[in-house]
């Protein structure tokens, strides 16, 4: 997937003024937040589950190699194959080679963040394969040649009229522009794709070491049709997805559906363990898992390890006021919102994704809702610190910060300058406010600056003879 994180500011500005997007975002935010709150209110154990999940995931991560080895052994035991990819390029090459070996022409895909991360669709398409996203939201954005704008609801920014237009253009049909008409149309089109596909590629919400299972959850059933009807099932998954036991998957699933969509369970949860058994009437003949590192092992060692707890539920972005104002495209890559503000710079570069962690008010709501208690604001701040160490903040800002620091460490100077500043600002004030302030136009373009009274608190306080 093309990296467009450098265009954050223009894309965000554009998004702020896109009326369809704004309407969709308002509706989505209300829906996701309200449904999650309701689901959680029904579960008094939710906090205990969050804490248990945090502790468990940390335990697993500290023994990640062990669990991956055990997982691999179990996949082999049930007749599947495990492939390890160090980076995105290797992962693409492995999947492509598997498709070629299978003589594939058509590939059906279930929703998978990792496949976006490694740019799989583009690679397969470039090799002449027909690649069909089967999650309805992903399918819509694929037709629109856009990236997903939300990890749970990829087409959340599209209106039904826009979807109807896309279908008309690509299917040559004229579906009724109602939600039910559009879903029926997509169902008919995609049904043929499922039965035509040679290879089905899905992601995995979890990998289970004890049984060699890959777990997917969907509401549509597309992931299941994808993996059941094709001859070859390929799973792409990050190495951090492994959990030891079936009971662990249960723990995380109790949190996932409630956090993501406010459901107590998604409609379909599927544990897949290898290819079709002797006598099975259906199911794929080959089963492959591509384990993707792509920088994750490095994250284990630094201050970012906690980010590997992420179960990709999307709650952080649903509760982020910045995401709520601009949607996912502005973030310019696979992972939007707060989780993306940490992950994206780590994947694509602290420099390339400079704005993401900085365009954040650190209000903390994301960390409060995260089902695995990732301290997102702290990690976002940590990315800013790493950017500072690499000298990536804008030069003017660095100069101001350095100067400010020197002054703030010298009280007499600091207070002297403060006294000067408030006097100056007071003279600029009119009816208690300043309407334009050169040098601070970022502020005064949209708001007045309340004017100070002309004396600082410290000078007034000490002038009154306090403390003397």
């Amino acid at each position, binding site marked *: 997937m093309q990296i467009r994180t450098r265009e954050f*500011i223009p894309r*965000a*500005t554009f998004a*702020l003024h896109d009326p369809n997007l704004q309407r969709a975002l308002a509706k989505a935010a209300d829906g996701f937040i309200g449904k999650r709150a309701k689901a959680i209110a029904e579960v008094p154990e939710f906090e205990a589950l969050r804490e248990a999940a945090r502790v468990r995931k940390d335990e697993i991560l500290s023994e990640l190699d062990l669990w991956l080895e055990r997982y691999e052994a179990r996949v082999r035991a049930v007749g599947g194959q495990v492939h390890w990819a160090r980076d995105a390029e290797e992962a693409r090459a492995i999947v492509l080679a598997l498709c070629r070996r299978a003589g594939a022409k058509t590939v059906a895909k279930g929703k998978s963040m990792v496949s976006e991360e490694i740019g799989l669709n583009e690679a397969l398409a470039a090799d002449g394969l027909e690649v069909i996203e089967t999650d309805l939201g992903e399918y819509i954005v694929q037709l629109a040649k856009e990236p997903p704008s939300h990890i749970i609801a990829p087409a959340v920014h599209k209106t039904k009229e826009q979807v109807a237009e896309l279908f008309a253009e690509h299917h040559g049909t004229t579906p009724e522009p109602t939600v039910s008409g559009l879903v029926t149309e997509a169902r008919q089109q995609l049904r043929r794709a499922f039965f035509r596909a040679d290879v089905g590629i899905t992601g995995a919400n979890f990998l289970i070491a004890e049984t060699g299972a890959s777990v997917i959850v969907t509401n549509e059933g597309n992931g299941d049709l994808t993996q059941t009807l094709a001859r070859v099932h390929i799973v792409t998954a990050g190495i951090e997805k492994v959990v030891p036991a079936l009971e662990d998957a249960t723990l995380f699933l109790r949190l996932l559906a409630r956090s993501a969509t406010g459901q107590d369970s998604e409609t379909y949860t599927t544990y897949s363990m290898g290819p079709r058994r002797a006598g099975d009437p259906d199911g794929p003949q080959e089963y492959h898992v591509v384990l993707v590192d792509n920088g994750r092992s490095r994250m284990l060692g630094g201050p970012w390890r906690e980010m590997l707890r992420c179960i990709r539920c999307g709650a952080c972005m649903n509760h982020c*006021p910045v995401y709520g*104002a*601009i949607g996912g495209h502005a973030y310019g890559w696979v992972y939007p919102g707060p989780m993306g503000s940490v992950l994206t710079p780590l994947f694509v570069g602290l420099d390339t994704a400079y704005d993401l962690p*900085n*365009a*954040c*008010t*650190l*209000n*903390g*709501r994301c*960390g409060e809702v995260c089902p695995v208690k990732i301290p997102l604001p702290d990690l976002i*701040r940590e990315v*800013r*610190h*790493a*950017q*500072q160490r690499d000298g990536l903040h804008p030069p003017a*800002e660095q100069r101001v*910060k350095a100067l*400010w*620091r020197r002054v*703030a*460490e010298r*009280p007499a100077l*600091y*207070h002297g300058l*403060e006294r000067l*500043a*408030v006097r100056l600002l007071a003279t600029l*004030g009119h*009816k*208690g*406010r300043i*309407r334009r302030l050169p040098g*601070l136009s*970022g*502020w005064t*373009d*949209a*708001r*007045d*600056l*309340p*004017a*100070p*009274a002309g*004396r*600082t*608190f*410290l000078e*007034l*306080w*000490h002038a009154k003879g*306090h*403390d003397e």
Partner: protein
Amino acid sequence: MPPDRTGTVGLFATCLMNAMRPNIGFAAARLLEDAGWRVEVPREQTCCGQPAYNGGDEDAARALARRTIAQFEAFDALVAPSGSCLATLKHDYPRLLRDDPLWAGRAQALADKSWELLTFLHERVGPEHIRSRFPHRVTYHDSCSGLRQLGIHEAPRALLARVEGLRLVEAEEREVCCGFGGTFSVKYPALSERLAENKVQRLLATRAEVVLGGDLGCLLHLAGRLSRICAPVRVYHTVEVLAGLADGPGIGQS
């Protein structure tokens, strides 16, 4: 109030309060002194270092943390009229200095006796000292760092309930950020503006005459936006109302 429950408070004059709204400092001092506390304002204090910390400059934040600790560690308590600065003192100082053998303990000791003003008034001073009158319809803006890092929610409401004539009308989406975010508001002005506008509309929907809050950063931001869209609403720091010092112009008014 028995004397053993009082002592000397070091009042932390936050940068914004010091420059933009001294009245908040005087209001705080009045309430504290009325309740028998001695209030001191160290002359050598500057900034808590939060802008540096959030801006990525840990070094600068550490240097300012050490300064602040040295200025305030002798008092019985440090009190600051801002949840945001206080969260820095309470949560970030111990973390910033945890690997510094000379300072880690001192950072924690100061953190343990540092209080956000409204919480201090509620828990240590007691609401019975509030004897003001403010016959207006008001709404309250919960600032994010106070709300999430310090859990400030009850204190301001309990204190305001003591104010004669005051009617508190709660806004929708109280837990949503107003879009100030310190340097965020100048680095990403368009985003900040949108968040401010969303917030201001929620506040206006309460038909309150007055907006109160506990953090001057958010209040300057909201007052600035309200004034720009010519909304006839006054903005004060909560303590100005509690101390009976909200008789003058609101923030950004004359």
